[in-house]
């Protein structure tokens, strides 16, 4: 399972619909300070079901909506298309598309392959593929040394979760 493409619209600095096609190997994102690189990581975590807005660097989920949008268009969505040719995800399709949207009032909707679903269904499905918004394989900017600073107790708990 890997991410084939990401579609971001209305999310933080991505006002207009942006499609990013990823490859199976080593993808490197670069660019000037403040251009939107970490916002892409926030978008991925959001789509994977992140529950804590502070992990996306906002106080409330509604702050994720691009503040440049006119009233009436204040909505954001992130779509992740996963390659499922190994059928690790128990759905009979070579591609699985998950989408999470939020509107001005903070209402969130989740979709799998275009059909309304729940966050729980998405999280269950993704855990089979080893994809979770809070797993150790997503390291946010400035957070890498915290892994070295884990207390021995936290480290054991982390390893227990992984097994």
């Amino acid at each position: 399972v890997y991410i084939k493409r990401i579609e971001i619209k209305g999310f933080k600095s991505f006002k207009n619909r942006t499609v990013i096609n990823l490859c199976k190997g080593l993808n490197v994102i670069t660019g000037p300070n403040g251009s939107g690189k970490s916002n892409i990581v926030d978008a991925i975590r959001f789509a994977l079901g992140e529950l804590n807005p502070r992990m996306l660097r906002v106080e409330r989920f509604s702050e994720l909506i691009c503040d440049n949008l006119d009233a009436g268009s204040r909505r954001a969505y992130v779509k992740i298309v996963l390659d499922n040719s190994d059928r690790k995800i128990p759905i009979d399709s070579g591609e699985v598309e998950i989408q999470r949207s939020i509107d001005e009032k903070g209402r969130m909707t989740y979709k799998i392959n275009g059909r309304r679903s729940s966050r729980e269904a998405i999280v269950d499905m993704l855990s089979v593929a080893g994809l979770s918004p809070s797993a150790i394989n997503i390291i946010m900017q400035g957070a890498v040394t915290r892994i070295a600073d884990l207390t021995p107790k936290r480290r054991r708990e982390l390893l227990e979760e992984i097994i």
Partner: protein
Amino acid sequence: KKRVFMEFLDRLNSKLREVFSKFTSGGDAWLEPEDKTNIFNGGIDLITAFPGKPRRSLSIASGGEKTIAALSFVFALSKLNPTTVYILDEVDAHLDPVNLERLASALKDLSNESQIIVISLKDVIASKADKIYGIYSKGGLSKVVAAVMNVEAISNG
């Protein structure tokens, strides 16, 4: 349950030694339960011995040393459970040129088993990419340009 955990720890330790030794050209690192008789009674220490230095607590290690230890831990875990996606945002911020080169090799190696998405400002890292994405800001809004670097590695990009 305890046996399953101990087995896992042994396998992880052998991967950790391998990854860390390669990353530091000769250093050693391992995970040690605080209570050897009953693992679940205490935590698990990450002990590191950088080349030319004795084993020391990670808490007095430098910023770059902690980064290397942390990434070695994460990469070692991935070798036990390889088919996953890694998203790393500027983990290389505190690395010197030698360690950047080693990180670039480690990422290249890891990308044979897993999909890796790295955000980096370092040329050394970008030079190893199969595909590069340039993000820039226009009128305060983000735009993306992508360039495929390694044509054989790209099956869908």
